[in-house]
């Protein structure tokens, strides 16, 4: 059971969350060709290792946030807000639990 550090609530069991897939996928312009549009819809890096992904705390605050997580060890390295850029340092920096 992974412990996911919700950006609002702090560490909770993984089954309180839904994974929303890879972060930072930008929708292309509507005039983009099939190749670009298909790439946006379907093609993914799917890394074996450090992955930037979106999670939502559906059985809690309902908030979306980003995780830096290792897809082999499941270790959560970092958490950052939906509108933030990914952290340059991929080290463990868990948020403080709420008082």
């Amino acid at each position, binding site marked *: *059971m992974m412990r996911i550090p919700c950006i609002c609530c702090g560490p909770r069991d993984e089954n309180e969350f*839904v994974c929303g897939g890879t972060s930072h996928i930008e929708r292309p312009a509507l005039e983009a060709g099939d190749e670009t549009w298909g790439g946006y819809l*379907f093609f993914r890096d*799917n890394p*074996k290792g450090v992955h930037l992904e979106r999670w939502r705390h559906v059985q809690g605050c309902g908030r979306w946030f980003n995780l830096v997580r290792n897809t082999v060890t499941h270790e959560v390295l970092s958490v950052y807000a939906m509108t933030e850029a990914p952290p340059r340092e991929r080290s463990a920096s868990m948020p403080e639990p709420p008082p």
Partner: protein
Amino acid sequence: MRYSAWSLLRGAMSGHRHWVPAWADATRRSNYDVIIVGGGGHGLAAAYYLAKNHGVTNVAVLERGWIGGGNTGRNTTIVRSNYLFPESARLYDFSLKLYESLSQDLNFNIMLSQRALVMLAHSRHDLDSMSRWANAMRMNGIVAELVTAAEVGAMAPALDLSSNARLPVLGGFVQRRAGTARHDAVAWGYARAASALGVHIIQNCEVRGFVLESGKVAGVDTSQGVIRAGRVGIAAAGHSSVLAKLAGFRLPVTSYALQAMVSEPIKPILDTVVLSPGTGAYVSQSDKGEIVMGAMLDLFPSYAQRGSFAVKQAIIAAVLALFPSFSRLQLLRQWAGIVDVVHDSSPIIGPTPVPGLYINCGWGTGGFKAIPVGGWTLAHVLATGKSHALAEPFQLQRFIDGRLIDEAAASGIAH
């Protein structure tokens, strides 16, 4: 040597000293006509059919671990062809037909048990969608029978058939030709038959890069050095994206853990395969007596091969709702594979953006039943440069053209 009752008897008379290894521990060459990356069922089957169907024997199968140690050794052994679309029906039923004669073709007992597959309906909605599904199969020339609750009960009496069951059984449909096969035997049978035709099977050989010359594939860089070949086929399931990245392209694949587990062995209580689309759970009993269970994915990207307890609990909860008496069993062993899931739950079999490099992937949670057809069609495109007719609808290009074969939505199979 051929396996037969006579060779068993001969062995019994002579202390069983005449047996030879099932496949040759080949000395790796520095170049081949074809390299197959991935020594699971699909890769080994492709090597066999390259030799058998096309006379291409200068082939090496490179496996980073031990053959059949990936998803081929981790599935719940179900074989079936109950898909919705005509393209899928043709593909999977071709595979099931190959399974039906595979023990004879390979001279290796793959323990095919066509004990039927019963799909359960738990609601009026389920009954309607089962009718649509069974009728689609019949229109595609595959036998499927709608059955009543009583008929389901006769096939699997250990089910909770009471009126206040958590998952009431209202009926379902049956594919009688479906069933199980011994997964390891499929890998070993194809390995032995391919090796006998001259294919080299090389284990502990991890591909770490592709050798490209003028943009075309010229070989692979491995943990055992560079091996050259003008044609390379990838059959690496959950590791497809890793290999694609090494070759400079992307796939519409996300890798997830798919868990499976077995109970302690017990006396026969279930002699068919039961699948409940409503819960996603599928259950059968192995020849050793273990209850074999599987269900939904752990729904986050993972290469860990182990899944979480939260999903184990969900799988077991579904199985126990169907078979309450199983609650007394001890869980013996659990594990997971790495499944390569694509959005339409249909495979990708054909060329990649790199000339000379071909791929067979995207089978997701449904690759075991398709080992024969996956191998057959990958071999075809490697040997001829053209897609087999069965594989034509299943190209990488469909994700650009938008012509998906959407089995995920259509037949409700959680791939």
